[in-house]
């Protein structure tokens, strides 16, 4: 492995043009990930036709690098402005933005930089060591019932995040689950709650909903404070987390690498589930659950470690089996095909050089996050100095652009505004915005896999419990649920602010 890695590194850095492509990918991914309104997918779509003129290794490597740094890039705006660059950065905002409001933006961004790099590099190393066996294990042992059980396990803890009471936490999750049912049902294609609006057949898209619930509702909250004279501009803090603080979170980092990796390896799942599941696990294992959603460093660490850990893992089914884990890896299939290659077992035999250049590039791209991220952060944090009256319209404009640009639908902008108003009112009433977003995102994934799983087990729910991984996850989820209900009865105000 080391010999191959060194050979891949030598090929990567032995050619100035290849180095140029690598640097372009690193910076481009970070920028497109960080700027609300565009994403790494936008950059990838723009670049797709141009990769035809590159060498195959250069084209695939470019997309792999964009994937790594783009996943990190969205964390910055999530932390500073409550605008997640994409769905996988939404859990970062749960605690990252409250940290900014507390004047701890530097600490949050620093943790995001470091943990993104650690998560990405760790998964790159595992990817290099065991791509083929891991891919084969995953597709043999993890099917729709297991993914549903994983989602159920994740949702079981969601009531604890950010709500005034556990009951309101559960209501928040249920609201999210209800929103997730809008649109065509995932297996039969039957329209639900679309009220004859054709565009709603596709359901509520994640990005507009997230932008509304987070960014727009926050603008309303801050505007209200401004109008009532209670507004305090967040302090700009350049203080990064200390080594001691990071060392204290070593278990969270290790757990997030594992969770992120396991979610990322599943075909069609990817980094979004990884980030949400990892955040949920951080809450589950914490002795101070009530602190999550209010500016806890561990929340940022868990989400950012996991979503980058998923990037390396997502390459495993892609390269070993030809199964892309998400939109960007699906575009990478096209890059392969443009060069008359097919990702899958044959590519390891026919193009080992390409594979090791890509592996090496992903490792160094994650390392670059650490180096460039620190420099970039020192500059970006100064954006917080912009007065609210200028910053708020700018954020609204960027959020509206971000909501519209993905599908080009005005409906998505309307959804964003409505989510913003609803989010503002729900927050005032003590409901949890993270809980709603968790319900929305995990609900869509969970419903689809539950329906597929039910078809697979011939509508015999008991069969779920004959699958060991599935049974363990469901049992653990029920234990968490019961514990949550017990705590609610024992101390109804236990999580009250």
């Amino acid at each position, binding site marked *: 492995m080391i010999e191959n890695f060194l050979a891949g590194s030598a090929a990567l850095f032995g050619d100035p043009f290849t180095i140029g492509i690598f640097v372009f990918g690193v910076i481009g991914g970070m920028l497109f990930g960080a700027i609300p309104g565009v994403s790494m997918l936008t950059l990838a779509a723009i670049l797709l036709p141009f990769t035809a003129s590159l060498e195959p290794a250069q084209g695939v490597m470019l997309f792999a690098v964009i994937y790594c740094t783009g996943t990190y890039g969205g964390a910055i705006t999530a932390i500073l402005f409550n605008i997640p660059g994409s769905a996988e950065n939404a859990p970062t905002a749960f605690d990252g933005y409250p940290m900014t409001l507390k004047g701890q933006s530097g600490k949050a961004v620093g943790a995001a930089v470091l943990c993104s790099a650690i998560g990405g590099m760790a998964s790159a190393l595992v990817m290099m060591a065991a791509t083929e066996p891991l891919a084969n294990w995953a597709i043999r042992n993890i099917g729709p019932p297991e993914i549903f059980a994983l989602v159920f396990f994740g949702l079981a803890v969601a009531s604890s995040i950010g709500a005034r009471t556990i009951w309101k936490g559960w209501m928040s999750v249920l609201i999210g689950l209800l929103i997730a049912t809008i649109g065509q049902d995932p297996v039969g294609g039957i329209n639900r709650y679309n009220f004859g609006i054709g565009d709603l057949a596709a*359901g509520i898209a994640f990005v507009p909903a997230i932008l509304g619930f987070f960014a727009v509702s926050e603008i309303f909250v801050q505007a209200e404070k401004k109008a009532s004279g209670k507004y305090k501009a967040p302090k700009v803090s350049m203080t990064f987390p200390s080594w001691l603080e990071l060392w204290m979170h070593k278990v969270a980092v290790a757990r997030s690498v594992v969770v992120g990796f396991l979610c990322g390896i599943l075909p069609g799942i990817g980094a979004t589930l990884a980030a949400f599941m990892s955040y949920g696990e951080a809450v589950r294992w914490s002795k101070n659950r009530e602190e999550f959603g209010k500016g806890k460093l561990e929340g940022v660490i868990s989400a950012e470690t996991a979503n980058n850990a998923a990037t390396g893992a997502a390459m495993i089914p892609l390269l070993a089996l030809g199964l892309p884990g998400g939109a960007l890896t699906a575009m990478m299939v096209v890059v392969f095909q443009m060069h008359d290659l097919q990702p899958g077992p044959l590519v390891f035999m026919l193009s080992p050089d390409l594979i090791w250049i890509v592996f090496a590039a992903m490792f160094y791209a994650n390392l670059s996050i650490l180096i460039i991220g620190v420099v970039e952060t020192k500059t970006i944090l100064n954006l917080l100095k912009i007065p609210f009256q200028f910053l708020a319209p700018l954020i609204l404009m960027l959020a509206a652009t971000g909501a519209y640009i993905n599908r080009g639908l005005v409906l998505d902008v309307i959804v964003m505004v409505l989510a913003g108003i609803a989010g503002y009112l729900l927050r005032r009433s003590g409901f949890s915005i993270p809980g709603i977003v968790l319900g929305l995102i995990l609900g869509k994934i969970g419903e689809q896999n539950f329906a597929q799983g039910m078809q697979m087990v011939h509508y015999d729910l008991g069969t779920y419990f004959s699958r060991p991984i599935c049974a363990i996850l469901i049992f653990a989820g029920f234990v968490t649920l019961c514990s949550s209900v017990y705590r609610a009865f024992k101390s109804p105000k236990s999580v009250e602010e």
Partner: protein
Amino acid sequence: MNKLLGTAAFAAAMFATSNASAFECKRSEASFDKPDGFPERALTMIVPYGPAGGSGQVAAAMAEAVTELTGIPINRDHKPGGSGTVGMTAYMAAPADGYNVLEHIDDASSAHALDSSLPNPAEDLIPLVISQVTFSQVYIRSNETRFTDWPSFVEWVKAQDGKATIANVSKEGSMERVTMGFITDAADMKIQQISFDKGAPRYGALLGGQVDALFEQPGDVRNFLDAGQFKPILTIFDERPEAFADTMTHREAGMDFEPLLRFRGFYVHADAPADRVEWLQWAFQRGYCEDSYQAYNESKFMTVIDSYRDTDGAKDLITRSVAQYRDVYKAMGLEVK
């Protein structure tokens, strides 16, 4: 149900097109005068699916070919969701000035068959060209030991008493679900269809043994076929395509139904100016002949049968498909509006 399936003319049309032959461009004019300078700017192509799927890829290949031919750039605007309805709605709301074109698949025809208030691709739109026509197959893992061909598969499925599974895109009224209905009726077997809307989990389910078989089109699983991981055991087409000479057809397996085909094509609004439509027809039909597009089609097994339909041929294919779907839906007891 079989009696309702298609017409003799449809069958004849399919037979007439089933033999892939050396490529011959059906549109001979190498150039075509622009009507009043049209187009003087880039065209927009609305694609109702994501950029990485079959539609996204064929849209990219055709856009590249037309641009090579005419020098006119084509911006692709992907509007995925709702089985193509979001993109179709957006297209119908776009100006009918010839600058907006649409990529769509046979789902538009089946959707119209189920609900006539939805656009009819043969009347509300003008097909510029259908550039991909393909058939479906049933696949198993190459290392499968429980069954090795269609007869042994059917025997095994019957022995499972409804517990066998097949992965496909079995949305209500879809080509996949309808065809599977034909197959199970004709073979007198029960098989549980597992619906996966994305390709990766669908193919992973077969590779990992989560399902017993897969219903798919050959171009979409070419890498698995080339890698020797999947093996076709049934071709749902009236005769054996040369590339799959060893695989029996549904006719040979004793199933007497007309195959439903997957087709992808390009359209313009029926109200677009006639001279502009004429130029677009030339550009897209001639684009089909470009080397780059032909190379793409070949890589996707789209030259195994005749993938080309000009406007009239496309209208004919769509009209027959709509009628066929409508008959089948009624027979299935679905509410046909």
